[in-house]
């Protein structure tokens, strides 16, 4: 009776130590100037955010290739180490833990989706690492007290619709929309865009008649659409990612609701959008932080190289990834170092005090890492989506009221 149980106990004790010790370890590497600079990234390659996650990945890869083609950073080649976090917060933390603690990468850059940025930025902070990220656009990212975080895009979510709000509030009283319905995904980014606009329009006296928030996994939009359609607002605003925006538009169209203006974040700029809603896109608005035609110096090179590498033009997600790379590269060149330890603080300090030229324009940050800017507004005109705001960048005039969809 005694020995089997005792053996079990030994097994428990030993496997605890041995198995754990066996599955990592022995990754100590000496630093030398010939070694590549390893950049650790965790991205959602599967799960809820896999589509945008893959877009960001392409952006990072394009940046690494462009940089290496030009001789690398500080004369060292750039190597990406990308892990999949399954769009899962537990995983994203374990990933960065592994990248920093076990793989000893030299730099880390951010994952996709606001929900994953906060936990991963904390890991970086507690290891004293610089953390530039392409996707943490919501307000709460910047009030966590992170000192190592920088958002590599022109504007945070709440400011995406700034140009549209200005335009609408400047309309004469007779034309100005009087009632608006908002439907937003319960996601810091998506909701941030819709609520940013809501706040500005309400302050301008435009009445909110429907305000719906739905969880990310909602699939049936029939009842939300019914509520909106029966309230007959002049304008409908969707704080959407991709599929939820499509579903909501289809549900609204099933009810034959015709607003004077319809604005949805993210979804309408996707290449598959028109096909997904049966080409009934007429007049739909969307904010965007990136345009292939933008006149910034590095953008031309980016579009060219990206198209050559992937056989298609870059979209916003790809641009975000690329921008992140550009920001980190600028800091590394300026500080003259790229490894864990004291170097990281030099990189952070430099970014706090300087401006970086990127494919989305010059970027600079406040103390919390928040960029200072706004998004452009695009509208579906015919079979194409065109920039309509701000006036100095427009490719077409904003059509209001919009044609029936």
């Amino acid at each position: 009776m005694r020995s089997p149980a005792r053996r079990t106990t030994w097994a428990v004790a030993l496997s605890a130590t041995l198995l754990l010790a066996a599955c990592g370890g022995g990754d100590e590497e000496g630093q030398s100037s010939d070694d590549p600079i390893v950049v650790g990234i965790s991205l959602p390659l599967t799960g809820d955010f896999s589509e945008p996650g893959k877009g960001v990945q392409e952006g990072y890869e394009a940046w690494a290739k462009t940089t290496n083609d030009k001789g690398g950073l500080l004369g060292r080649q750039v190597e990406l180490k990308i892990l999949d976090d399954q769009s899962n917060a537990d995983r994203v933390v374990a990933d960065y833990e592994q990248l920093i603690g076990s793989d000893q990468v030299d730099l880390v850059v951010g994952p996709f989706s606001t929900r994953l940025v906060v936990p991963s930025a904390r890991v970086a902070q507690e290891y004293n690492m610089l953390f530039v990220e392409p996707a943490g656009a919501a307000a709460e990212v910047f009030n966590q007290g992170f000192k190592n975080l920088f958002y590599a895009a022109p504007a945070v979510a709440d400011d995406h619709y700034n140009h549209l709000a200005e335009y609408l509030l400047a309309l004469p009283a007779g034309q100005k929309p009087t009632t608006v319905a908002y439907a937003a995904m319960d996601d810091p980014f998506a909701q941030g865009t819709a609520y940013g606009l809501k706040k500005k329009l309400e302050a301008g006296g435009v009445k909110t008649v429907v305000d719906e928030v739905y969880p990310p996994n909602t699939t049936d939009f029939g009842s939300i659409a019914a509520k909106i359609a029966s309230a007959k607002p002049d304008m409908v605003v969707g704080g959407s990612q991709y599929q939820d925006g499509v579903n909501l538009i289809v549900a609204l169209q099933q009810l034959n609701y015709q607003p004077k203006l319809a604005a949805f974040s993210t979804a309408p700029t996707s290449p598959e959008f028109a096909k997904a809603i049966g080409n009934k896109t007429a007049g739909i608005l969307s904010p965007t932080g990136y345009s292939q035609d933008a006149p910034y110096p590095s953008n031309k090179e980016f579009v060219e190289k990206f198209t050559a590498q992937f056989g298609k033009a870059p979209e916003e997600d790809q641009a975000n990834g690329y921008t992140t790379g550009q920001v980190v590269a600028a800091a590394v060149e300026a500080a003259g170092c790229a490894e864990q330890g004291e170097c990281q603080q030099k990189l952070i300090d430099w970014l706090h005090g300087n401006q970086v030229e990127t494919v989305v324009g010059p970027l600079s940050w406040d103390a919390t890492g928040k960029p200072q800017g706004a998004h452009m507004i695009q509208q579906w005109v015919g079979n194409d989506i065109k920039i309509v705001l701000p006036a100095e960048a427009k490719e077409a005039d904003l059509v209001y009221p919009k044609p029936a969809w």
Partner: protein
Amino acid sequence: MPSGALLFQSIILGLLLGGLYALLAAGLTLYFGIMRVVMIAHSAFLILAAYLAWWTSTELGIDPLLSMVVTVPLFFAAGVLLQRGLLSRLRPVTLTMMSVLITFAIALMIEGLLGYAFSGTQRRIQLSYGTASLELFGARVAVVKLIAFGLAAVSLAGLYVLMKRTQFGWALRATIQHRDAARLVGIDTERTAGFGFGLGLATAAVGGTALSLDTTIYPSLHWHWIGPLMAIIVVGGLGSVAGAAAAALLLGLAQSLLQIPMGATWAQTVFYVALFATLAIRPQGFFGGRLAQRF
């Protein structure tokens, strides 16, 4: 106070949804009646069927409804196989508990394989008639929702006729009501149970196709279906097909109406509130089921 039109619209939507719930709950009730098995994988098969319909539509370019020609017989066979190959081999004493785990494991595997094959991205069938709708006394009813409801109604009616009018249905009902007695009068209860499982899974094939017409699908979606379905069969009284159908329509309607004041997410909780209330107040269910007490 919501407007009359919105109320009417919600009632229509609720009934259409309830129809689909009723069909799926009928399948779950069959399994429970036959073997006292709570089939967690039922809604995973539902999503599988929806994916197959989506694949048919996207890759083969034919109408998703045609996928049923393959999925219904396929699922029937899978059901027979599942019952004969796995569930009937479990020890009777622990059958109820262990069958839950087995079917749970199957659900995980289906979810994982779907994720592997089609990725976790949300998918939706693009139909030429996807945004078409009919006008009905001021309410708009989407054509795809009507088709889905029609499928559910026809299958339920078919199931009813099968159970009441055919030799097989008679054997099935006898097996459900008293297995030993059924065996005594010469019914091959093992075979009947297998076919009953096949029939249950076939409802998932029809339901999945109906579902795919009008909603987005993703691999882990089945958890959002199994909860309400389990609540429905408990409220309806475990093992009572008619009770399940009544509970399905009622709860579907309640969900749709509650969405007006409470919003989509809170409205879903109606199922779980009903489930807990049923178990705390009247474990045998509200619609005459008589099996729940001991399980």
